[in-house]
């Protein structure tokens, strides 16, 4: 526990110090890693803790991004309106989708989350007058928080994202160590046993589903500010699948593993896209390699090497 706190403090120090040593391009890459890190961690709450393999997690990310984008462009670029609205929409859509998805288990859950996610993709793609279709929403402005530092600059925006990343890690750490979070792990291991022990399993899964949607929405909010642009590709299956890969690569069921997985994928994508166009092929190869050689992810691999077993 102490070593965990120490390494957490060390990581935080490094993250805070990064702007001093990185170029503005590198810093924006790290900003993207943090945002996708939040997204991957939110999915891990479902996959790694509750044992629910969602293949439609992009839906909540995308809904939040579109909500913030549309409000900022068409209504008002007001952080205090747009940002909560994005979170609310993500939570609301996940509350609705959860009602359908949680009637199923296993691969059926995978299929229905995929289908529900594709519905949103279809809406974003088809409803051109609202969403701009596959052109997406361009030039979404960053909010003006009337701070001495403008968020349009790379470094203040990095700290803005880092703050939310820290909040998300803190909140998720609390959730997974709470009685609720421990019960999710029990549900992942044996649903029927948990029912018999007095746990209302459906309620736990439903709340986990909404929380995961909410944190995915947080990532979507930050992303649309970061990118200034959102298109249907942030709602589609490929994006959901990359999120799953980030979780599995980092280590599902570990809190920070998926964030590490996200950083690796974002970094690799950025690097490889400079040389070839077949990035998806590389993703597939990574998936196969991880499944074969590090089924418990990078964090699991490191833990095995250090010889300490975690749950």
């Amino acid at each position, binding site marked *: 526990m102490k070593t965990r706190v120490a390494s957490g403090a060390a990581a935080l120090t490094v993250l805070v110090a990064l702007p001093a040593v990185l170029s503005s391009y590198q810093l924006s890459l790290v900003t993207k890693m943090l945002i996708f890190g939040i997204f991957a961690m939110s999915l891990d709450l479902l996959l790694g803790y509750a044992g629910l393999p969602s293949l439609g997690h992009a839906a909540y990310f995308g809904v939040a991004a579109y909500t913030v984008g549309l409000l900022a462009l068409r209504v008002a670029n007001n952080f205090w309106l747009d940002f909560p609205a994005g979170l609310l929409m993500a939570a609301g859509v996940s509350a609705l989708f959860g009602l359908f998805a949680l009637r199923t288990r296993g691969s059926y859950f995978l299929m229905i989350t995929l289908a529900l996610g594709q519905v949103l993709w279809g809406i974003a793609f088809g409803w051109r007058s609202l969403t701009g279709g596959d052109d997406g929403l361009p030039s979404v402005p960053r909010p003006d928080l009337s701070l001495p530092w403008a968020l349009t600059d790379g470094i203040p925006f990095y700290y803005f994202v880092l703050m939310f990343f820290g909040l998300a890690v803190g909140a998720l750490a*609390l*959730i997974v*160590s*709470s*009685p*609720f*979070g*421990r*019960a999710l*792990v*029990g549900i992942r*291991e*044996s649903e*029927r*046993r*948990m*029912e*018999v*022990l*007095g*746990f*209302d*399993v459906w*309620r*736990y899964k439903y*709340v986990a589903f909404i929380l995961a949607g909410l944190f995915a929405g947080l990532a979507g909010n930050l992303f649309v500010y970061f990118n200034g642009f959102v298109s249907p590709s942030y709602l589609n299956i490929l994006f959901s699948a990359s999120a799953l890969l980030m979780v599995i690569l980092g280590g599902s069921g570990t809190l920070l593993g998926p964030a590490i997985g996200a950083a690796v994928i974002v970094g690799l994508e950025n690097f490889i896209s400079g040389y070839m166009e077949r990035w998806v092929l590389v993703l597939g190869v990574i998936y196969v390699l991880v499944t074969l050689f590090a089924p418990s992810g990078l964090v699991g691999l490191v833990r095995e090497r250090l010889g300490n*077993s975690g*749950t």
Partner: protein
Amino acid sequence: MTALEVDKLSHSFGGLTALADVSLAVAPGERLAIIGPNGAGKTTLFNIVTGIFRPSSGRIRLFGRDVTRLPTHDRAQLGLARTFQISTLFPKLTVLDSVLLAVQGLDAARFTLHRPRTAYGHLRERAEALLADWGLADRARQVTRQLSYGEQRQVELILALAGAPKVLLLDEPTAGLSPAETASVAAMIRRFSRDTTILLIEHDMDVALDLVDRVTVLVQGRVLAEGSKDEIRGNPKVAAIYFGTDDA
């Protein structure tokens, strides 16, 4: 008042009748064995009593309260616990974590998500006391699947006991155990509080009769006989089932 009353329960899977008109009543503190050949419907009965299956017809009452339509977890909150014949423990969790979940299940803090579980010291104290009480304290830190099969059966019983149940259903607690392990599990059951009403499914007649007050014999989904241990021992129909005479 009866602790558990099963009233004219019937259940079928597709066209296959698993239970037909099964009725039984167990008084508080009583220990009843349910015996019968494979496929008699014993586990199906447990699954219906715990709410895992909905019966085709019939009622179930727990201390006079009709629970036929109540979900499994609500029945658990009323003091109904069970073990499973096939282990559905938490294979990847430590023994302590498993027992902690069992203790948490009936605790008011079971749904809290804004405080770490370590803030609830009483959960851990209770879990550790249970493990110490049943002689598994030295296994607390081990991952459940690394335990011997016999020890896993003991964990199974401890999980069911964690909530101090009023009615406890034991589904073949000694299945697959060596004679020595069977003896230790039987000794454990004998030590259970007399306040706990117990229904026991058991294949081994000797083990069953040793642990209970009364016996119900289930054959092909019907109650073939019920009575005291001596009545069942002397019942020719039961003997026919168990020793395979022709007129069975």
